[in-house]
């Protein structure tokens, strides 16, 4: 027996990133822009999707990939909006993964109507930690942070807040009932991710939803413009 040192020098997430690039290449080949939508459980991802998709996005055909540990409740809710929804469960019989990784999304590719959509929104599993680590082949990362979560969350979950391109600050309608200091939240957000784009929204009242719809439309336009 012989002990040998083997030099590796490889990011432990390289394997995931390689698959994410393969996903990205497939999305590109179909001209599909991909958004990875992330948040803590209960921040309002599905309700915001319902809101933004109810009236559609001008000239953009949208599909949704729903990631959940178990069940298809979210997918069922979105199905009534007449957008193609594909369910992806991370439950493998051992509790289930707390995030989507590139390989899970890859396994769902054959079920996705890539020929018929321009924008795929991937609703990740509700979790503020692991999803930030795993790229799935997305063009942009959008995270939802509800004001009910408190003003300190950017400081507690900097990995997630640093990795996103847009922060939707949701449940704004509840502000009158909360002791949360929104300015402090935005101050912490700016410390962790200076100048990150943010929108104050309420899935309940519809406030700010148009701005998000416009953002999504512009993202798709910029991507297809770049592809031409």
């Amino acid at each position, binding site marked *: 027996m012989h002990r040998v040192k083997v030099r590796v020098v490889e990011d432990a997430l390289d394997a995931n990133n390689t698959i994410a690039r393969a996903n990205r290449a497939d999305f590109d080949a179909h001209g599909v822009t991909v958004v990875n939508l992330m948040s803590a459980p209960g921040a309002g991802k599905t309700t915001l999707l319902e809101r933004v998709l109810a009236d559609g996005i001008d000239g953009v055909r949208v599909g949704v990939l729903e990631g959940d540990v178990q069940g298809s409740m979210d997918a069922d809710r979105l199905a009534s909006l007449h957008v193609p929804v594909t369910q992806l469960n991370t439950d493998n019989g051992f509790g289930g993964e707390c995030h989507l990784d590139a390989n899970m999304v890859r396994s769902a590719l054959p079920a996705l109507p890539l020929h018929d959509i321009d924008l795929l929104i991937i609703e990740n599993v509700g979790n503020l930690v692991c999803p930030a680590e795993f790229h799935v082949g997305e063009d942009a990362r959008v995270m939802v942070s509800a004001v009910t979560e408190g003003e300190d969350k950017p400081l507690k979950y900097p990995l997630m807040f640093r990795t996103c391109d847009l922060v939707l600050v949701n449940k704004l309608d509840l502000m009158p009932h909360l002791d949360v200091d929104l300015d402090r939240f935005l101050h912490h957000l700016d410390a962790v991710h*200076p100048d990150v784009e943010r929108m104050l929204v309420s899935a309940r009242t519809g406030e700010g939803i148009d701005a998000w719809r416009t953002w999504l439309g512009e993202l798709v336009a910029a991507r297809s413009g770049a592809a031409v």
Partner: protein
Amino acid sequence: MHELSLAGAVIDTVERHAAGRRVTAVYLRVGHLRQVVPDSLAFYFEHVARGTVCEGARLEQELVPALLHCDCGNEWTLDDPVFRCPACGEAGAEVVAGEEFLVESIDVVSEQESACTA
């Protein structure tokens, strides 16, 4: 549970490089910004390693402080997650170190070589 996912990713990486040989130690470089709790990663590593070539392997974690560099010339080590330059107030500072999650090297037991030298 972040560490559970990461432990799995470490073991996948190690398995590819171990090429079937038994692993006795794994040397990791972990950046401060990865928010890894070393004890938690060690715990999950031991658990996930069972039944793999990493079973019983020692996990050595070298923690790398987060170092940021701003265009104004200021460089600072990050303690709190404040990424705006404390000197000039600009956004967009570059992370020079602290984002790594690298498997640096592994120690393996090579049965083949012992057979050769026997």
